[in-house]
């Protein structure tokens, strides 16, 4: 299979403009004849669905949530990047592009990333026009802050609730189109399968989560904006229901899965407290603007943090990386925290934590200043841990947060299956091996508001509107397969709960396919995961029936897919004999424990093809070509 990235020719800064000019258009009068099915209404899906409807297409949107406003995007705290250069500190589109490429450890496409930086400014304009109350200074202008991996202030924010405000903005655009009838929204419906007609994606099968009904929906194109698969680890910062099933079921229908092993572990999360922990809570990266990370210099030091004098503390990020200090990229900060704990400097009862200390800034600017900026995060921390971070440093530890991997897409955001588009965290496109903070919101909205609405026309213009309907046999066949799968899950009637097995999977993944990986562990994971999968299908217990709301059945379906995806992740990690970004292979590191890339052999996207349930997946390579930036070893010193 030859992967065509469809990157337009010409100079980097002109590619997107000339591409927009060269693409086919759908005549305005014809747009209403085309129907687009949008699955997922988080930032990426809601922005895409509303924009497509504004342009005149018919849209049907689906989400397992009760309302689009509940999507996982709502939880993003810190902010969204844009190259506005309002603070006048030397930012530019090129700098945002460069930081993102470098932050991703040179494993993403130049052209995509440049386009992302280019449209970033439109996003901020759009959001302000929607009435999103971003933070402002006393002069009434927009305020910015800094995030990891950047030396300029380019992050726009709305208190600690930026994702919420952006999602409510996209939601408002979407309901406006629902009000005009151009978007039909199906709440509490979960995608079960993609239907392919003559090799093109033309429909989906969904399950109504309230009635259990399975139904078919036909359209002229299908858009997946279904988020990331971090919950394969069981514990992550993702919302409880976030899952990889939509992407995985597309993969089983022939869509390629790219760089599945690229996972982001976020450095600042509240550490695990009990065996019954159900999820991990992020403390926004923005805290690293003002908080200082340290551990005791002495191993196994059990004194309370306030009893440890200044000269017995190791502010290790400031020591190791004087230029970026506490604001190094996430992968670096996470790995160093793990290393400190592995060496015996960890703090708290489990010794799996480091301190994030605000004493200096409180002394410098006062408690009110800190409360104004981070108040809700501090409250959240106290509610969870019972400790007051104004008085004692926070304890933090890395946790799974984001998946850079996802379905392979070309420059137009179309997968290798014609008619199937993938947006937001669900695709693999822009973040390479490590995503910079405040860039996921930017990418989701760029994809939905400003990219897909153009690129999808190029496909639709070449197809006849309304070509398929649900009476075609492919739909019935697919519905039957879905029902069969559900019956199978309900009939195992074993002894273990879904969560028990999911926790076991999480354990394997965290230990062997987590923050630091090696060949032996990965090989072992590739044996262990299929064993656990067998155990699941022989011993899971899913009570209840398929014809009502059945939350255990929902979870079981998602776990079944995670059990497959986990193996793919391990295989990808084993194949990639280098360390890059969030993918750290212990065998490939410098003397100073920094990631060691192997550009000669691994400057490519690994796109995996499903070849059958009993045969290993096949890898295809898309070589990454760098014409504008030079591949250097990332240095944040």
């Amino acid at each position, binding site marked *: 299979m030859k992967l065509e990235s469809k990157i337009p020719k010409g100079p980097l800064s002109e590619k997107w403009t000339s591409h927009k000019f060269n693409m086919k258009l759908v005549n305005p009068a014809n747009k209403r004849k085309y129907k687009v099915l949008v699955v997922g209404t988080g930032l990426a899906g809601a922005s895409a669905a509303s924009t497509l409807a504004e342009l005149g297409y018919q849209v049907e949107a689906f989400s397992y949530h009760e309302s689009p406003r509940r999507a996982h995007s709502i939880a993003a705290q810190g902010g969204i990047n844009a190259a506005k250069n309002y603070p006048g500190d030397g930012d530019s589109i090129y700098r945002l592009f460069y930081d993102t490429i470098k932050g991703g450890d040179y494993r993403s496409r130049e052209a995509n990333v440049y386009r992302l930086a280019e449209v970033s400014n439109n996003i901020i304009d759009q959001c*302000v026009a929607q009435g999103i109350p971003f933070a402002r200074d006393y002069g009434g202008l927009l305020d910015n802050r800094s995030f990891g991996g950047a030396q300029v202030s380019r992050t726009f924010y709305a208190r600690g609730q930026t994702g*919420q405000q952006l999602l409510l903005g996209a939601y408002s655009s979407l309901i406006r189109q629902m009000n005009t009838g151009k978007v039909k929204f199906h709440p509490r419906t979960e995608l079960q399968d993609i239907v392919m007609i003559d090799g093109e994606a033309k429909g989906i099968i969904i399950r109504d989560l309230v009635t259990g009904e399975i139904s078919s929906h036909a359209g002229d194109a299908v858009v997946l904006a279904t988020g990331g698969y971090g919950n394969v680890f069981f514990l992550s910062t993702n919302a*409880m229901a976030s899952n990889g099933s939509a992407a995985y079921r597309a993969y089983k229908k022939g869509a390629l899965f790219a760089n599945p092993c690229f996972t982001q572990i976020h450095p600042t999360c509240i550490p695990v407290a009990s065996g019954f922990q159900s999820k991990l809570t992020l403390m926004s990266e923005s805290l690293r603007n003002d908080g200082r990370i340290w551990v005791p210099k002495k191993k196994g030091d059990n004194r309370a943090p306030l009893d440890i004098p200044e000269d017995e503390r190791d502010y290790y990020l400031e020591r190791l990386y004087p230029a970026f200090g506490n604001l190094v990229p996430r992968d670096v900060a996470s790995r160093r925290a793990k290393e400190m704990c592995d060496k015996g400097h960890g703090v708290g009862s489990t010794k799996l934590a480091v301190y994030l200390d605000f004493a200096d800034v409180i002394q410098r600017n006062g408690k009110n200043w800190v409360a104004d900026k981070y108040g809700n995060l501090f409250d959240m921390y106290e509610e969870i841990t*019972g400790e007051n971070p104004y008085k004692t440093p926070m304890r933090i530890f890395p946790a799974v947060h984001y998946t850079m991997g996802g379905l392979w897409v070309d420059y137009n955001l179309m997968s290798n299956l014609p008619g199937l588009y993938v947006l937001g965290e669900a695709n693999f496109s822009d973040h390479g091996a490590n995503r910079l903070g405040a860039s996921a919101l930017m990418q989701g909205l760029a994809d939905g508001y400003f990219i897909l609405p153009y690129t999808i026309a190029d496909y639709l213009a070449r197809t006849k509107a309304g070509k398929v309907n649900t009476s075609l046999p492919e739909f019935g066949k697919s519905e039957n397969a879905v029902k069969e799968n559900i019956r199978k899950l309900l009939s195992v009637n074993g002894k273990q*709960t879904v969560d028990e097995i999911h926790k076991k999977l999480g354990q394997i993944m965290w230990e062997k396919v987590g923050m630091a990986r090696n060949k032996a562990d990965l090989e072992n994971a590739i044996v262990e995961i299929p064993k656990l999968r067998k155990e699941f299908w022989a011993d899971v217990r899913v009570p209840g029936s398929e014809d009502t709301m059945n939350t255990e059945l929902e979870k079981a379906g998602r776990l079944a897919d995670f059990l497959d995806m986990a193996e793919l992740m391990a295989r990808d990690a084993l194949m990639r004999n280098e360390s890059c970004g969030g993918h750290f292979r212990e065998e490939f590191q410098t003397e100073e424990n920094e990631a060691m890339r192997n550009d000669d052999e691994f400057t490519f996207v690994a796109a995996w093809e499903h070849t059958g349930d009993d045969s290993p997946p096949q890898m295809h390579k898309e070589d990454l070509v760098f014409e504008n930036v030079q591949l250097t070893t990332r240095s944040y010193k």
Partner: protein
Amino acid sequence: MKVTVKIWRQKDSRSKGSFQTYPVDNISEEMSFFEMLDMLNESLVKQGEKPVAFDHDCREGICGTCGMFINGRAHGPISGITTCQLHMRRFNDGDTIVVEPWRAKAFPVIQDLVVDRTSFDRIMLSGGYISINSGGAPDANAIPISKISADIAMDGASCIGCGACVATCKNSSAMLFVSAKVSQFAVLPQGQVERKERVQNMVTSMDEEGFGNCTNTYACEAECPKEISVAHIARMNREFLKANLSG
């Protein structure tokens, strides 16, 4: 810790529900209230019973998905947080905890503690937006907005749409929820063009959905996990009056 939970169980919207009582043992203080429910559900599943259905997703107080009455209070005994943020250290060993769904005509029960709040979406649909298409927006800094207005707008915009205000109100009024959105746009320059129709349409829609009238008991403000102020209701009343007076 050991507690007894008395939970509302209801098969579906057509069935009649009732309370069921379950003991839950081996709880640790650090556990969240939902982790305690997870534990209960694990044991129910193992016995082949259907677990208690409850809505939740982010488990960090922002998605607005969770919500239940705990010992007679919306989102439980602690003010200013959602149910998912509640931790077991707030309870005592041996407590009996009574758990019920939101009860309001406009929020029918789907199963157990899960209710249907799509009526909120329909109110929003009637006017909770600024009519602007993607692309073509002016530069974000073209209109300065005072920090005070931006902060008031943000206070209103913080609403997570959980429905506690409705559930706790004896009239099942949605005034706090609706006014938070009306307020957000009323204080911003971007919201001015549709200011009049917005408040009229949203209030009409709220009435049509079967939410009750506001009699200023302020129970909503007391139970709102985001501490949305009733000052927004006052602002909305003024907006509504002004809109109607100007015809």
